[in-house]
């Protein structure tokens, strides 16, 4: 299977509906995966799901059966703790079999708590320590320019993660070098591990920060596929682009939404049933 870009065009009602159906299925996969492993980061998985679904099923060019295809768009999940969301998306995109999601975090599994490119082709960079994805993305984008390729690089970042200085070193350089083939997407759910971002080490005004580093910045609803696709798939403008995607941590399940303790809490058997019920009827 190849990336579904083209199969799912933007601005097409049926296709937007299809994306939301995929997202609902992905969220169910995430709950089941985490409940089985009794480990995971469900809050951030749910906030980033629609972003990942947009990229993998609406925007990016890739061939899941040929993961090293040289002209593929590069994708890096810098907030690597949300691997359960990424694995669920990659399984649906055909990188591996859906039933293998059951191996999440099991002994010797290829689906560890953080993505591992030695074990799973299609992962571009091993992430987990926050603040690594954007610098690597800058390298990918620079490499594409040097090789005169038109492929793009997408990096998904946590908002709390932006407190790491390495991001701003990368942002500064990408702006300076006008890496127009680079896009950063910030999952702006306003919560980090232990508290709100604005209570811990505030990030606002976030779009202004990026603009001052030479980026085009867009602020939008990170659960709205039409808005996401329009910006993600827009033509190059001579500058790197950042999407500040306003999201809800735990999006989709009432008792998980916006609760800081669900950063890495694991649903009980009853909560699992309840979550799936809510996700099925959404």
């Amino acid at each position, binding site marked *: 299977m190849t990336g579904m870009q083209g199969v799912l065009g933007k601005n097409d009602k049926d296709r937007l509906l299809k994306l939301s159906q995929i997202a609902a299925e992905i969220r169910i996969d995430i709950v089941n995966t985490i409940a089985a*492993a009794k*480990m995971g980061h469900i809050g951030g998985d749910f906030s980033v799901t629609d972003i990942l679904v947009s990229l993998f099923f609406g925007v990016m060019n890739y061939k899941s059966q040929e993961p090293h295809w040289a002209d593929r768009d590069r994708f890096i999940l810098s907030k*690597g*703790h949300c691997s359960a969301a990424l694995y669920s998306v990659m399984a649906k995109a055909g990188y591996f079999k859906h039933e293998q999601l059951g191996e999440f*975090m*099991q*002994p*010797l*599994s*290829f*689906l*560890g*708590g*953080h993505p*591992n490119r030695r074990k799973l082709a299609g992962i571009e960079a*091993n*992430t*987990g*320590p*926050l*603040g690594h994805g954007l610098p690597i993305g800058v390298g990918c984008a620079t490499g594409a320019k040097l090789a005169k390729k038109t492929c793009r690089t997408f990096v998904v970042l946590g908002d*709390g*993660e932006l*407190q*790491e*200085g390495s991001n701003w070193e990368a942002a500064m350089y990408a702006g300076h070098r006008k890496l127009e083939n680079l896009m950063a997407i910030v999952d702006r759910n306003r919560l*980090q*591990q*232990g*508290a709100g*971002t604005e209570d*811990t*080490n505030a990030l606002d005004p976030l779009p202004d920060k990026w603009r001052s580093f030479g980026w085009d910045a867009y602020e939008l609803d990170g659960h709205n596929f039409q808005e996401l696709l329009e910006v993600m798939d827009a033509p190059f403008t001579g500058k790197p682009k950042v999407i500040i995607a306003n999201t809800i941590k735990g999006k989709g399940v009432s008792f998980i939404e916006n609760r800081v303790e669900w950063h890495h809490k694991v649903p009980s058997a009853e909560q699992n049933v309840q979550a799936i019920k809510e996700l099925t009827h959404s």
Partner: protein
Amino acid sequence: MTSSLQQETFDCRKIFAETLIELARQNERIVVVCNDSVGSSNLNDFKKEFPDRLINVGIAEQNMIGVAAGLANSGFIPFVSCAGPFLSGRALEQVKADVAYNMYPVILCAQSPGVSYGELGPTHHSIEDFSWIRALTDITLLSPADPKQTKDAILWAAKANKPVYMRVNRFKIPKTTPEHSPFEVGKALVLKKGKDVTLITTGILVSRALEASSILEEQGISTRVLNIHTINPLDKEAILAAASETRGIVTMEEAITTGGLGAAVAEVVVEHHPTKMRILGVSHFAPTGSASFLLDHFGLSVENIVKSAYELVR
């Protein structure tokens, strides 16, 4: 061959948090610096009682170390609490230049060290800290074995007036330190005085070494057990005594063997009294698995400790 003893086990983070609160009540210069790790460091109670003295810089470890150095400059005694990998590795240059070289009395507390974050994988395993921190001069490197030693290490560090790095274990372990034994920094704790073979270890593996020694004793092999809770400065005297008085040394550590405890012991042994050694520890990036699965995977099971010791004296 694993022990049939059903012992109560402990997570050292609890005593860590309690001791810091105790200290902070007595000394207003005690402050804590952390990186969005209030919950994982068990610091919610500290925050409640001393909201101004818990400085959470967010997810920014390099800044965290610099801030701690500055606080020390202002006369405070900063305890930095952060998951091991991001403390020793992420901010290593800051640890070297800002803390060690400046000789600021910052106490770096590495939470959940070794492979205790099992399934989260190698990025979250703090197995290089012994080698990395050992390579820096002027930092005392402590690796407490149980709650008592964790508390003793904190109390000592608060008064030491110099840079300290210590591990705070999350992996559940039994108590191994006798109630009234002193905590002498730089001096190994002799837990058994045997004559045939020496087991040298540290941290959470002390209890496994003791189990292994009981099995060896049953097989008629008299076993010396040293708990090296201070990796820098190292107790050369105890190591040389082991090298000359027993027939071989097995070291074991929840750390990469390149430059770790075993290597440190070997440096002493090779220079002063060459003897047979087996160095057990982590050898490469871990596969997916729980902490206890990984310890066994890397040959740190009681069975393999026994086997390694047996090979030396056979």
